[in-house]
Structure formats: structure tokens, C-alpha cells
């Protein structure tokens, strides 16, 4: 899975490694403390969003800097519907529906823009949406934030529940991205990154491809947002519409390897662990540490870990062949 042109043997080894990892991660909450369960839940959440980003920018080449708006939509719509007494499952599905509809409505005009302009337009939309949430105090609770119902069960059990939910979301997202990328639709997505005009003239409907891809990315992100809201049981607009979340996930995607399946997961693991360490180790310099680490990462592993490993392997293979 790391390198596409591999024999069946290494493919099955990869599958075994992945299966073992999944089983270990499923059993893990029994053996670790609440602190680590929380950390892992956050890693899974970021990995899901980073995977959505990966689909948009790693594979399609569009950088939705304001993509965090769907995270906010997920969290807020869930909060609003649960406040009206709906069950969580219904609320999360409604939130996903709202996010997908929003992404399609915004997608048609905004995805005509390219490069910088697209990135900036999404930032603008995110900001405008945040203002709306802050100002419709009657519905959203305004700038002070709003609460979601707390699950009336022992905290340890609740943490386990969210651990498993976020983990399933990550696995589901990754599998879906994997299958999308290896389908015919996936080739259309990648052709847009390679050369959009050429793709268009080859008969690929680039507009609908882009909008559908954005809607899928919005779906994952909103699911992560819904789970986050229910998990935290308190959300505020400045928090769930924070562009910092987008930036974080972009960095995760970059360090892991943009345009690779496992890259975003690896990246979110590394960044979350590092920033957790930075928080606890030297809190005052935490922002600067994150900034400098980002600069170093971009300088030295621009293709990301998975990409760099693949490069090294390829080089080795070439050497052997020679």
C-alpha cells in the first residue's frame, strides 16, 4: 500500500500489518489510562479530517483552507438538534446532510476558482459562517457557545465509546478514500490535479467531480465535528470554526505524505503526540515550537514521511535493477 507497484507477497504482508494494527487499537482502551484514551481519540479525529483534506488537496490539488466550516456545521447542527430532544444518531445524520447540502450549494460557484483564490474564498465563507453562528444567539447560543447533553454513564465508559466511534470513523474514512481513489472516479479526481483543462477536454466532467469530491470531504469532516461536539459536550464558534484546525490538518497531511493513503493517519499521530508533548513540556513556547517544527518539516520532508519512504524504496529498487 505504501508503494503501488509491489508484488502480491508484500501486499499481503501490508494487509496483515494493517489488520494487526486495527486489532491492537481496538483492544488498546482496556490497557491504557483515560489520558491516553483521550489523546488517541483526538488523533483519530484529526486523522479523519486529514484524510478528507487528503482527498481534496493530496489527490485533487484544491486547498480548502476554510474546510473547518464543515467541522463547525457538524458540531453545531448536532448540538441544535440534540437541544431539541433528538437522538444522537438522528442528529449526526441530519448534520451530515446539512454539511453535504451546504458543500454542494457553495461548491458550484466556489470550485470555479483555482489555487489561491479558492483557498481564500473558503476562508471567507468560514468566517462569514462563524459570524452567523455568533449572531443568531437564539438558535446557536451565540459567541458564548452551547452545550450538548452529557451521556449519563460512567466517564470511563463514555471515553471508550468515543474512542471506538472516532476509530471507526477513521477506518471508514480511510477505506472509503482508498476505494474512491482506486475507482474510475478516483482517476478523474487525480486527473484534475495533474491538469484540469486537459481533463476537461478529455471528456471528464470536472465541475461535478470537484463538487462531489468536496461533498464527500465535507461529509467526513462534519461527522468528525458531530462526534467532537458530543464528546466535548460544549462547543463555541471560535473553537469549532477555528482556521487553526484546518492548518493543523494540512500540516498533518504534509508530514505524513499528501496523496498517500496512510500519510494523513501517520501525520496526525506524529503531530498530536508532538504537540501534546509541547503543551505539557514547555507550554509558554508551545506556539513557537509548533511553528518551528512546521517549518523544519516542510523544509526537510516536503513529500511527507510516506512519500519519502516510497522514494527511498524506489531508489533502492532502481539500484538493484541496475
Amino acid at each position: 500500500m505504501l508503494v503501488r507497484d509491489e508484488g502480491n507477497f508484500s501486499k499481503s504482508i501490508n494487509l496483515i500489518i494493517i489488520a494487526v494494527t486495527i486489532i491492537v487499537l481496538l483492544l488498546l482502551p482496556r490497557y491504557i489510562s483515560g489520558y491516553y484514551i483521550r489523546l488517541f481519540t483526538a488523533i483519530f479525529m484529526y486523522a479523519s479530517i486529514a484524510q478528507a483534506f487528503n482527498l481534496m488537496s493530496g489527490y485533487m490539488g484544491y486547498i480548502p483552507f476554510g474546510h473547518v466550516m464543515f467541522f463547525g456545521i457538524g458540531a453545531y447542527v448536532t448540538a441544535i438538534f440534540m437541544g431539541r430532544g433528538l437522538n444522537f444518531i438522528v442528529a449526526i445524520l441530519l448534520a451530515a446532510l446539512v454539511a453535504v447540502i451546504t458543500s454542494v450549494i457553495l461548491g458550484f460557484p466556489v470550485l470555479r476558482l483555482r489555487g489561491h483564490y479558492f483557498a481564500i474564498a473558503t476562508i471567507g465563507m468560514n468566517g462569514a459562517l462563524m459570524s452567523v453562528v455568533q449572531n443568531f444567539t437564539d438558535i446557536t447560543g451565540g459567541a458564548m457557545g452551547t452545550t450538548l447533553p452529557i451521556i449519563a454513564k460512567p466517564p470511563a465508559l463514555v471515553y471508550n465509546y468515543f474512542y471506538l466511534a472516532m476509530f471507526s470513523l477513521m477506518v471508514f474514512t480511510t477505506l472509503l478514500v482508498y476505494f474512491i481513489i482506486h475507482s474510475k472516479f478516483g482517476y478523474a479526481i487525480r486527473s484534475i490535479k495533474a491538469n484540469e483543462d486537459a481533463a476537461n477536454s478529455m471528456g471528464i466532467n470536472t465541475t461535478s467531480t470537484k463538487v462531489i469530491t468536496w461533498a464527500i470531504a465535507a461529509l467526513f469532516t462534519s461527522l468528525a465535528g458531530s462526534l467532537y461536539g458530543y464528546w466535548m459536550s460544549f462547543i463555541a464558534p471560535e473553537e469549532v470554526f477555528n482556521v487553526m484546525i484546518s492548518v493543523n490538518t494540512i500540516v498533518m497531511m504534509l508530514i505524513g505524505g499528501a496523496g498517500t493513503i496512510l500519510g494523513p493517519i501517520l501525520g496526525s499521530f506524529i503531530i498530536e503526540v508532538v504537540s501534546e508533548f509541547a503543551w505539557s513540556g514547555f507550554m509558554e513556547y508551545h506556539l513557537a515550537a509548533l511553528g518551528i517544527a512546521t517549518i523544519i518539516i516542510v523544509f526537510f520532508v516536503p513529500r511527507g514521511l510516506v512519500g519519502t519512504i516510497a522514494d527511498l524504496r524506489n531508489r533502492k529498487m532502481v539500484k538493484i535493477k541496475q
Partner: protein
Amino acid sequence: MGLQMFVNALLLGGLYALMGIGFSLQWGISGIINLSYGAMVVLGSYLSLIIFNLLRIDPFISMFFSGAILFFLGAFVYRFSLQPLLKGGIVFTLIITFAIRLVLENIILLVWSADYRTIRLTYAGSNFRFFEAFIPLTKFITFIIALILVYLTYLFMMNTKVGKGIQAVALDKEGAEAVGVDVQKMYLINFALGTALAGITGSLWASIYSFSPHVMNVIIGKVFIIAILGGLGNIWGAAAGGLLLGIAETSGATFLGSQWQEALGLVIMVTVLLFRPHGLIGKKFFG
């Protein structure tokens, strides 16, 4: 009432015009969306604060100091973190400038904390009458300085050798290179000029408003809107964009309520992006 609102809009717009030009030049000519621009503006404010506390010198004089320091900071940042990564495309420049913003924000927080600071000038409260409208003196001085600086930037771009070089690079990179213009040097000077303007804006901002690290978020949102309204890399466009934003915000605050001010600006920006991606003001700038 109407005149007062117009005067307020104009005074605000003057500062916005100056604020937007540096960002617009960096984006339009050097091709870098500088997400650390807000942090650089706020840094300019704090530099003026230091000088004011130590020497009691007005921000209107210490702005030269802020500008100079920020010029060198910009040159340094460009040379050592942006120039090597230009080929990597926009993800890298966005991420790098955001990382620089984090570092600057951290430095500001460590040195000055997150509290709001103000520079209290002795004549801060004085104002004069213009027909029925009251004009605060500090805002008026700021407006005049901003206009002069916008004009000076324009003169620099049009009449000096370096300015013409920058224009040539913006017009046609390969062509400029072929006739012997040092392209990277022009990008560097242009970027540093943009950060210098950010620093000066910060000093002027400090003479009117209070400031804190949080202000950098407000500023980055505004410069995006200004640059896009005016068209990238276009000095007069950015100036007009600044004035327009000033008018939009002031009238928005009057008619819709001030809580919608930010959303209004963003909605205008997205609308302009969708329908006139080259800005409201006339044609696309060079290239």
C-alpha cells in the same frame, strides 16, 4: 449624521488602504499569501509602544523605526524560509507564513502578554470641526500619512530603477530575467517593502486603537478583503479597496449593527471573488 458617517468611513478607509497595499503587493507580485501579515502589523504596534514608553516619541515618528525593522525582518523571512520553497507551490507558502505567524505570536505573547495595550498621546482626545462633522486629530494625521505613503509607494514603483524592476518581474518573469533583472532580488525587495508597510501600518494603528495579539486575526481578515476588492498587486486598486471596505464597514455598522461588520466584509469578498476575480477596480494588473 450623513456627513459624519462619510468622514468616519474615509478616515478608516485611509488606514485600510495603507494596510492592504503591502499585502496586495506581496500576493500579487511575489506570489505569496502572507498569513503572517497580521502578526507583522501588530509587531509594528508593539515596536512603537516600546519607543513610546522609553523615549515618549509619538508613533507618527517611530513608524519609520517600525518600518525599518520590519523591512529587514521581511527580507530575512523571505530569503531564508520562502525563497527556497517557492517551487513547492501555494501549500508550502501558506503553511510557512502561518508558522511564522505562530512564532511571532508566541514572541509577542511572551514579551507583552495577551492584554490590550494602548499608546496614550497627549492630544489623543482633541478634534476639530468640519462643517457638522467632528474629526479626531489623530485619525486625521493617520489618514494624511497613509495617503502620502500610498503615493510614495506608487512613485517608488513608477520612478526608481528597483521599482521598475519589480514591475518588470510582475509583468513577465522570464522576459525580465532575459534583460538582466535579478528576479529573486526583486521579489525579496517587494516582499520586504510589503512587511515594512505592515510595520508602519501597525504604528499608525497604535496611535488610534488599542492592540493585542488577538488584533492580528482581525487584520489578516481585512487585508484579504482589501486585496481582493482592489485586485492583486495593484497599488491604486488596494487603496480603493481599503476605502471601499471602510465605507462598507461604517455603513454596515450603522444599518445592520456592528456585530455584522465582519461578516459583511467577508460576504463582499467572496462575492467579488466569484464574479470579478481580478478585483472590482478595472483591469488585471500586469501579467
